[in-house]
Structure formats: structure tokens, C-alpha cells
């Protein structure tokens, strides 16, 4: 899977959970700082991503996921390992 394909899935997953047209998601959006997500929504989004890519996200990996771009990078990396 290419980075762009991963990006599409990550954007779609976040958009589905946030479900707010007023919030614009970009690669630079900080997950905790810019998106109006609470802890439960965050858990939901990462569980959806795990399911979508059929991978497990360790807590130590979450530390690297500060922006949406970071999420795409980590998921691309995990996807590559799974393949």
C-alpha cells in the first residue's frame, strides 16, 4: 500500500469519527491540539485504524503520533511490515 492510499484511509477514518464539517483535517493537524476529539473518540479512531490495516498499534507508537501526518507515517510503516 502506498503512502497516498494509507493517507486516504487515515483521513476517512478521522473524518468518520469526528463527523464535523467545520473541522478541517490536514496532515499538520495536531490530534490532541487541533481536532475536537475527546479520549473516547481517540480510542475509537485508533481501534478503527487497527482494524482497517489489520495491525496492532503499541502504546509506544502512539508517542510518535502527534499530527495526522505522523499517523500516516506510522501506519505506512506498520503496513509495510505486515506485508
Amino acid at each position, binding site marked *: 500500500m502506498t503512502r497516498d492510499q494509507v493517507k486516504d484511509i487515515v483521513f476517512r477514518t478521522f473524518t468518520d469519527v469526528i463527523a464535523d464539517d467545520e473541522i478541517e483535517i490536514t496532515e499538520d493537524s495536531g490530534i*490532541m491540539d487541533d481536532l475536537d476529539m475527546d*479520549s*473516547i473518540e481517540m480510542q*475509537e479512531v*485508533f481501534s478503527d485504524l487497527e482494524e482497517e490495516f489489520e495491525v496492532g498499534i*503499541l*502504546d509506544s507508537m502512539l508517542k510518535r503520533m502527534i499530527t495526522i501526518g505522523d499517523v500516516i507515517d506510522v501506519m505506512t510503516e506498520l503496513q509495510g511490515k505486515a506485508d
Partner: protein
Amino acid sequence: MQRNYPGMFNLTKGLMMIAIMMMHAITDGLFGYGLNVQSAKLYPLQVMGYGSMAMFFMLCGYTVKKKSWKACLRAQKAIIRPYCIVAVSVLVISLFGVCLAQGSASDYLGTVRYNFFPYLLGLSAGIFMGIPSHGIGAIWFFVVFVLDTLILNAVLRLEKTWMQIGLLVVMAVAGIHIGTDILMPFYLPQVLVGAGYMYAGIWCKKLDIFNRKIHPVIWILLTAGWLYMSWKGNINMADNYWKCGLADWIMSFGAGLCLLVGLQQLNRFEGQMSEKIRWIGKHAMWICCIHSVSQIAIPWNQILSRISPVPVVGMLVEFALHFGLAVSICILIEKIKRSQKKRRRISRQGQTV
């Protein structure tokens, strides 16, 4: 500098969940074995208890933001479902227990009244239809969290900060003075008090408290206040008990902050053990639900002495059972949720093809 990242509180939440289960095992044990422990021996427990609820609410307030009402209400759905599942589970297990004990019809009725209606109405501590209803497990926290998130969504619309703080202080004063004489639905006293703690969590984020250098004198003063008030005062938020009234509420902010910042320092540790604790923190919501069911539906204080005549062994067995049940059911729930999602995804793919 470490920026905020998802799951940054998992270790703290995991440690708190373990502490809650341990604390319930100890209090059940003390009661079950009829032990009258000197308050000096309970002081360490009191110190932890003094700041723990404030810390938990601050941690939950950290991610709260002003949202559209629609988005705010939608986000709460994730909590209401497990709450209802817990209410039904407690009732079913309790009725099963009465059935095993060959109880009378009035026992059944009592179980329904004690375990089900208080849940549905979220009754705070007090007397319900002649039956004493004390803090209903750890799950009361969910109702308070949902209602306080909604309240804060309104409070944050006030223009001036002093107006927001003023309103929250008035609410806390009202909540503390309601006491336990009047039975209030939806844990109203706790809701009124907890909103202030969650608001403090919002400020922790605004002030970037985990990356800011704070003068050691401030920490020393806060810790001294925490230790002193743990001795002089006492807080039991589940039962809305505030020994020193508003002073307890105000001082617990410092205690909660010390505890939160202190526990977050442990976040730098990596390894198998910390990863396992983080897993517990990640699943804190379901673990809290399962623990509530196992705590309320099983009369621990009555059966502990039958498990072992030695109090410490009884307490350890209760803790191990709480912990084992919570973790194993949580793994099961995770597996069920995954297979449901997988099925949905396959059927979605089938429809597109």
C-alpha cells in the same frame, strides 16, 4: 519538549485503575473481617484518596473543548451504552445470587430496588425506598463525566474567565452542602463538584503544565497542603462526604495536580510492564465497568472470611479476582468488537464489488 499525543495518560489511568481495585479490596476486607484499624495506619490510603478523584477529573478535563452541541452530545453516546450494560449485568448477577441462596420474593424485590433503579436514575448516596444506597461502584464516575462535559460546554461559552470560575465555585458550594440527606438523581452533588476539577484539567492543557518549569517552592507548598489536609480533612466523593467542606475541595486541586504531574513523570519508562499497565489504562472505561459489576453484584464483605481466615489473604484474593475478571472480560470484549468490525468491513466490501 514533548507535545500532547493520544494515549498520553494511559499509564496514569492504568495505575489508577489498579489502585482503585486494590483500594476496594482493602476496604471490603476491613469491613468483612470486622477490623477496626487505627486511622494512622490508613493515612497512606487517605493521602492517595485525597487527590485521586481530583486527578481523575483533571485528566478527563484535559481533552475537553468547546464544541457544537450536536458533536458534544454525540461523543457521550460511547459512555451511555456501557453504563446501561453494567446496570443490566448487576441486576442479572444479583438476581442469580438471590436465586442460589434460595431467597424469598422480597429478596428479589429488594435486589431490583437496590441494584437496578438506583442505577437507572443514577441516585447519589442516601436512602432509596427504605434501602440505604451508597456510592454505586466506580461507575458513578461515568454519569458525572458525561454531565460535566455538557456543563463545561455551556460554561466555556461565558466570555470572561472569572465568570466561568465563579459559576463553578458556586456549583461546588451547592454540591458540597447538599450532603447525603436528600436523595438526588444523576449523582447531582458529584456533578456540581466535579465540573470544577474538569475545568482545572482544561487549564492544565492551556498552561502546558507537563512541559512548564514550575518553581520547586510551589510544589513543596502544594505537597505540604496535600499531606496536611489528608490528615485534617477527608474526601469521599462517591458518598459526597467533605469533612472540611469547601476547604477540602480547594485543597484537593493541589493534591490532584501533584498526583497527576508526579504520575505523568513515570510515562518516560518503557518496557513490558509499563506497556501492560498502559493496556489497562487504554481499556480503563471497560475495566471500570467490569470492576463495578464484580464489586456490586458479589457481596465480597460477606464471603471474604469464607475464602480465607487471614485478612491479608482474603484481600489479595479479592484483588486478584477483580483484576483477573476485568482483564479477561476486556480481552473478550475487544475480540468481539474486532470480529464485528471485520464482518461489517467484509460486507461493505461485498456491497461495493
